[in-house]
């Protein structure tokens, strides 16, 4: 029985110096089949965060340099959403958005009433095709059918995944060779030429090593595995990992804080319900510390928001009475309201990944040691999220408000980032403004590993924009 969609930790072991749930998908298409498909742009309130608030290092680029590449990938991938006009969550190239329901609209209006222009609940932008159908038909993709079965891989190509979009597109060029069952061992560095010349790959099944050569190499193995590959790419020139002259490779790893949530009931609009499916929900862009520092913690959180309603059945009895009841659900309770936080965490030198000196996996590759944890800033942020969301729910007339902190380990957010961060200075960062290793410019990293800070937005869209921008740079310059 092959693994399907998620790898088993037993078959792909790693060392948790502190609890960390490392979620990986080694199938063709990787986690692009499994992602939540939420795509919000960053703004300069995110890129300028480290410099303004004094953590990590300054990002080497700003929003205006990435904006055209956000547009590029949004048009290609297909992003539905509304033009919301928010400076801290810039609008993009949107296909028509999905509707908010009657209670979500009520909440939106209540936010406007109670908080004016300082807090917004909007429709979350998602990578689903909801317009411009002729263009996506060229990729072999069709309209999202709102089935909400995305995690099975979509037969319509209704959402963006490597399988539905980039791989078929690459295949069209005639230059693509797809090699599943390839385990990257390391990057080959040629000291005489002063550049990387290829990649060592182990066949998953035969365990034999093979070398491939290239002028340009993109290492995008998904954040932590990118760190692993670079750390394992040792040579005389780079005994501590490729491009790791300053010893910072693997350090300043951070993630998104998804620990807390708030739920409630709403006894209004009881004459209404919803029908059909929707691949997205409501979204709170960050409202804490956006324009200036205003709390006792740094940065802030975004939040998901949704209201749901459906009929249920009385299941109290047994026998024919129960059978008739469950066949004909006709009870209508209150609207169910839910929210979850997505907090920015601060990358620190103490949050790191490293190679285990002894333990190896089945393919002889050193196991990764992960040491990442919540800090005091995260705890304060959780407290604030629970307080603020409770207050907002209360003001909107919601009742039976319940807060939760599930104390999940980092990693379950599946937004691990950093370790190969971008920066202006080769002494304090690994990658330059074009995502090239400072010390090995023909090696690019554009996945989560490259992130200098985490912001609050679901990060894939930003990785995609970096990747498109870096590919363009490589074509022009190398």
């Amino acid at each position: 029985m092959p693994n399907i969609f998620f790898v088993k930790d037993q078959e792909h072991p790693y060392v948790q110096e502190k609890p960390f749930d490392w979620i990986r998908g080694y199938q063709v298409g990787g986690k692009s089949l499994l992602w939540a498909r939420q795509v919000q742009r960053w703004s300069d309130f995110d890129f300028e965060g480290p410099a303004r608030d004094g953590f990590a290092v300054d990002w080497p680029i700003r929003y205006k340099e990435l904006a055209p590449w956000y547009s590029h990938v949004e048009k290609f991938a297909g992003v539905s959403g509304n033009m919301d006009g928010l400076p801290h969550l810039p609008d993009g190239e949107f296909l028509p958005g999905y509707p908010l329901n009657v209670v979500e609209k009520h909440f939106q209006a209540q936010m406007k009433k109670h908080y004016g222009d300082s807090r917004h609940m909007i429709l979350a932008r998602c990578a689903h095709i909801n317009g411009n159908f002729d263009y996506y038909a060229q990729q072999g993709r069709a309209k999202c059918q709102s089935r909400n079965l995305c995690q099975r891989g979509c037969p319509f190509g209704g959402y963006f995944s490597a399988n539905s979009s980039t791989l078929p597109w690459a295949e069209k060029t005639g230059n693509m060779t797809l090699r599943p069952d390839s385990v990257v061992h390391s990057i080959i560095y040629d000291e005489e030429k002063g550049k990387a010349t290829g990649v060592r790959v182990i066949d998953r099944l035969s365990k034999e090593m093979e070398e491939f050569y290239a002028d340009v190499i993109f290492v995008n193995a998904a954040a932590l595995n990118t760190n692993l590959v670079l750390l394992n790419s040792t040579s005389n020139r780079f005994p501590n990992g490729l491009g790791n002259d300053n010893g910072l490779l693997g350090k300043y790893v951070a993630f998104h804080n998804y620990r807390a949530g708030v739920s409630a009931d709403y006894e209004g609009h009881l004459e209404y319900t919803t029908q059909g499916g929707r691949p997205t929900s409501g979204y709170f862009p960050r409202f804490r510390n956006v324009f200036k520092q205003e709390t006792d913690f740094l940065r802030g959180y975004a939040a998901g928001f949704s209201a749901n309603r459906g009929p249920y059945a009385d299941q109290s009895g047994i026998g024919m009475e129960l059978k008739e009841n469950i066949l004909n659900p006709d009870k209508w309770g209150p609207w169910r309201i839910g929210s979850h936080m997505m907090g920015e965490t601060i990358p620190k030198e103490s949050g790191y990944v490293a190679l285990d000196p002894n333990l190896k996996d089945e393919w002889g590759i050193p196991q990764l040691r992960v040491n990442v944890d919540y800090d005091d800033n995260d705890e304060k942020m959780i407290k604030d999220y629970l307080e603020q969301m409770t207050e907002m729910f209360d003001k909107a007339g919601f009742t039976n408000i319940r807060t939760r902190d599930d104390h999940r380990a980092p990693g379950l957010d599946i937004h691990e980032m950093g370790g190969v961060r971008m920066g202006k200075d080769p002494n304090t960062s690994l990658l330059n403004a074009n995502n090239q290793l400072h010390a090995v410019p023909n090696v690019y990293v554009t996945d989560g590993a490259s992130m200098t800070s985490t912001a609050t937005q679901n990060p894939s869209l930003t990785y995609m924009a970096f990747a498109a921008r870096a590919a363009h740079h490589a074509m022009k310059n190398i």
Partner: protein
Amino acid sequence: MNRRDVLRNLALITGGLVMVPSCDFSQEDILSAYDKLKVSTDMKQLLGKIADTIIPPGKIKGALDLEIQDFILVMVNDCLDEDAQQSFTKGFKSFENYTINKTGNKFGQLETSQKEEVVLAGLQEEDEDYKDLQGFLGTTKRFTIQGFLLSEYMQTEVKPYSLIPGDYQGEVLISSLKSEKING
């Protein structure tokens, strides 16, 4: 691989998402598919009768017709933790004695109305002595309802699952919904 192994593996692999097809384990007292529960053929039959009391046959099929007992056992065997499994087994094993104490007869010998009374009484037990029994019946009821509603029969013949449910509408008047009553 013989047929029994195939079926056992199917039960384990599917993790309860797909019902185990009809199979004859009569050669074997302890059913290997439910290795954590130590369930015998007799017990499985009894479970089928309890499930059929919870959702009886009528105009449409009942729990026993759909072999929901297999669904229940797969779910308990594969998806509950060890404590819950032990409690389930303990409650299960005490059920026949409970029935005899209540009615003087074994469950299989009772009339439908008597079976309903025993199961309802067990579900409503608050006494600490009957905690496992009450839990066993509660779990059985929960998985009977789930297995019934999610069965292929229900999802294809009675209330066909909509593969494409249509565009989202966020403001639908409940009074405008049309629903045809399904008679059980």
